[in-house]
């Protein structure tokens, strides 16, 4: 299968690979996927609590090139966004940006799930209710 130039770029030079201190109250962690499905993404955000803005984002992904690229792109997009803005990121935007083929759309879905899961974790840590899981598109 031919990968798009953008996928190859993110795969070869992934942005924001790493780990944030999950014991910190202003760090939210999302871990989605499963090893036997061939994709596991962990996405973390660090939030400035006064402005509700994401100041840092890191990821680690076990998966194919498209999964790595989707999560790498997600971290790029998250930085500087408010929580509300981050929640509005749709997987189809990732599909478009990376020119993912239909068989790889699930990678973008996983990235969107990882974003929401990280935000939800941050909310729970700060005394807010967890996000309603949106599973409609699965």
């Amino acid at each position, binding site marked *: 299968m031919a990968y798009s130039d953008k996928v190859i770029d993110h795969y070869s030079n*992934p942005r924001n690979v790493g780990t944030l201190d999950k014991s910190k109250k202003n760090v939210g962690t999302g871990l989605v996927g499963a*090893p*036997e499905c*061939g994709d*596991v993404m962990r996405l973390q955000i660090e939030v400035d609590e006064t402005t509700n803005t994401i100041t840092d984002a890191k990821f680690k992904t*076990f998966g194919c090139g498209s999964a*790595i690229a989707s999560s790498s792109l997600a971290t790029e997009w998250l930085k500087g966004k408010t929580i509300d803005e981050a929640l509005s990121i749709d997987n189809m935007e990732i599909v478009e940006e990376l020119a993912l083929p239909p068989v790889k759309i699930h990678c973008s879905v996983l990235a969107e799930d990882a974003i929401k899961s990280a935000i939800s974790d941050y909310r729970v840590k700060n005394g807010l209710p967890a996000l309603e899981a949106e599973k409609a598109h699965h």
Partner: protein
Amino acid sequence: MLKLPIYLDNNATTPLDPRVLEAMMPYLTEVFGNAASRNHPFGWAAEEAVDYAREQIAQLIKCDPKEIIFTSGATESDNLGIKGVYEMYSQRGNHIITATTEHKAVLDTCKHIEKLGGRVTYLPVNEQGLISLEELEAAMTPQTILVTIMYGNNETGTIQPIREIAAIAHKHGALFMTDATQAVGKIPVDVIADGIDLMAFSAHKMYGPKGVGALYVRRKNPRVKVTAQMDGGGHERGMRSGTLNVPGIVGLGKACEVCRLDMEADTQRISAMRDRLERELLTLEESYVNGSREHRLPHVTNISFKYVEGEGLMMGVKDLAVSSGSACTSASLEPSYVLKALGLSDDLAHSSLRFGLSRFTTDEQIDFAIGHVKEAVTKLREMSPLWEMFKEGIDLDKIEWAEH
């Protein structure tokens, strides 16, 4: 200068040896006759070339030249052998025994036999990829007409105990067939000493051309017969009709001759390179060889790199032409059924690479491959949340993974 990508997928196919091409050339040009034309020199020259090829093949596998039936390749040979025996010996029984790690050409042919009303036993293998002789013995029935077990596995290189298997089949009055596609030309195969009654093999896995192979069919002790699966002019003693592929057959013959003469030297050089590649890659933590290392073809190694995903790994080793344990067809990512049969988990099967070396592989290429794979695995692990958890001592099996 190293030319990239480097070809290490010689279990899929091998390049044509220049010596083989040279032998074939006249038969693609001036000597174009039909080997079945008995009335003129054009036909005689073609027939002579075919007969010479039979002798070259016979010398490699230690049979009589008359016992070679030319086909289009190992898949056709497997079909002809299994279906042909099933039909020919239907009076005697309808039971066939094979193994779960066989090539699809055998497994799907056996499925076809089941649809026709035959009964097939698929023997499991142990973690080394070997069948159990006790289980084979226990599976034998008075209705068993054929035991078909491959010589060396295409994915792992595991070599089955062929002589012992043949002896058990014969003890119970069944024929023994082997798909020896990966073994012939690579290791000594002796149909008499091994007790083989039918054997499928192909030219393009031993530096010959694609589109030509053969089925060895024993002519005495016992005399084995198969019903034709292709009707027509009655070529190949009536077992396989169709005008003979003379240039291809000449190529198969020459490939066999070169393999016979060079086998010892080739094996020594290739297995030394394979062992070095394997030793170096095993210095990566959590990497495992799949299949038996003791009973193995000299040119293959299949290694799983835990906590690295297969497709991502393939992308990381883009300068190598290798195969992975993921048969990644369209949307579904199916792990190799051969590796699964060895007891590997899906993720370990997915994260495997198969390296197949050839007589044209160089030390320089192996050096490059070692560095390239190490770099890719290390990079992907640094990016892998599973690797991080493993390093922190977290038991991944105890995690409740989010449904997806």
